[in-house]
């Protein structure tokens, strides 16, 4: 009886491989060649998440709802670095001669695309069943590189939900993060203007 109780408690506590780190592999980043003409734009990405940083994109929880593990991007790639690469491609697709951070001093940027990752998180709500939830909020703004005057700004929010999960497995995290990231990039692609609003 005692042994059975112990097995049940251990199963509850460790349910769904709640320990350790799950690595999520995102599809290949967008690539786009630099256009021959267009405004010079510098892409800057800041990660201002409070409880997560770097490659971490979510938490794993045990049967009691306590944080017991982490969900991270594969190869320890930081979310800011990955998003920066995709924003670079999006900006070039829109016709900007975009580069990461500060371009060469002899060829300074005319516009800065300031990006702030407020939230990017996948987490589990534990109840009778498990609900996997995801949320991403990213602020984007275009700033005149010389005058620092704001030219345009927007906030992109995407979220996802997968209810009635009985045991969370690695593929659930993979699916949630991949889906959230894909929809975030898609929303950013729709949001970033093709011309500098002056």
């Amino acid at each position, binding site marked *: 009886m005692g042994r059975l109780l112990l097995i049940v408690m251990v199963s509850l506590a460790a349910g769904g491989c709640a320990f350790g780190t799950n690595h999520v592999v995102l599809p290949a980043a967008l690539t786009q060649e630099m256009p021959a003409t267009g405004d010079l734009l510098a892409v800057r990405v800041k990660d201002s998440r409070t409880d997560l940083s770097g490659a971490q994109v979510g938490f794993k929880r045990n049967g009691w709802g306590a944080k017991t593990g982490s969900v991270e991007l594969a190869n320890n790639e930081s979310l800011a670095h990955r998003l920066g690469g995709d924003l670079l491609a999006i900006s070039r697709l829109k016709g900007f001669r975009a580069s990461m951070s500060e371009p060469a001093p002899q060829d300074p940027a005319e516009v800065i695309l300031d990006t702030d990752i407020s939230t990017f998180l996948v987490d589990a709500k534990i109840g009778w069943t498990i609900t996997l*939830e995801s949320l991403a909020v990213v602020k984007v703004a275009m700033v005149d590189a010389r005058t620092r005057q704001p030219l345009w700004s927007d906030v992109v*929010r995407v979220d996802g*939900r997968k209810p009635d999960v009985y045991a969370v497995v690695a593929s659930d995290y993979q699916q949630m993060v991949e889906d959230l990231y894909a929809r975030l990039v898609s929303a950013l692609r729709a949001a970033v203007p093709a011309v500098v609003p002056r």
Partner: protein
Amino acid sequence: MLDSYRRSARPFPRLCPAEAMRRSGRVLLLAAILAATLGGCARYYWMKAGSTAEQFDRDSRECVQDAKSTVPGPVSGLAVDVIDQRYRTCLAGRGYVREKQFDPPAPGSYRGIESEEELAAGAVSKP
């Protein structure tokens, strides 16, 4: 005689396994009831030396507005957790410490936002 007295006066006399299980079960049940009864009386309060209720109200209101501005849109699902986390980080950054206290709380303790409804409304609870 003395030896027999010493044996009977042992604070934890040796019991048969069945009796020991029954007793430990009773102790566990009592502990669970006590925890459930007393646990309900304790609530979270924010404290900061030298602060006033007006100051806390202002800080709490500013922190909730700041937290909500980082996650625009409906305050539901994971957004609640994110806003709540940012709200607490903001208040902690202003020098407040969140601790569980039994009612009535110590002077200088203030109730912050602890529920999803309050967070959605951006209301500030009374001390």
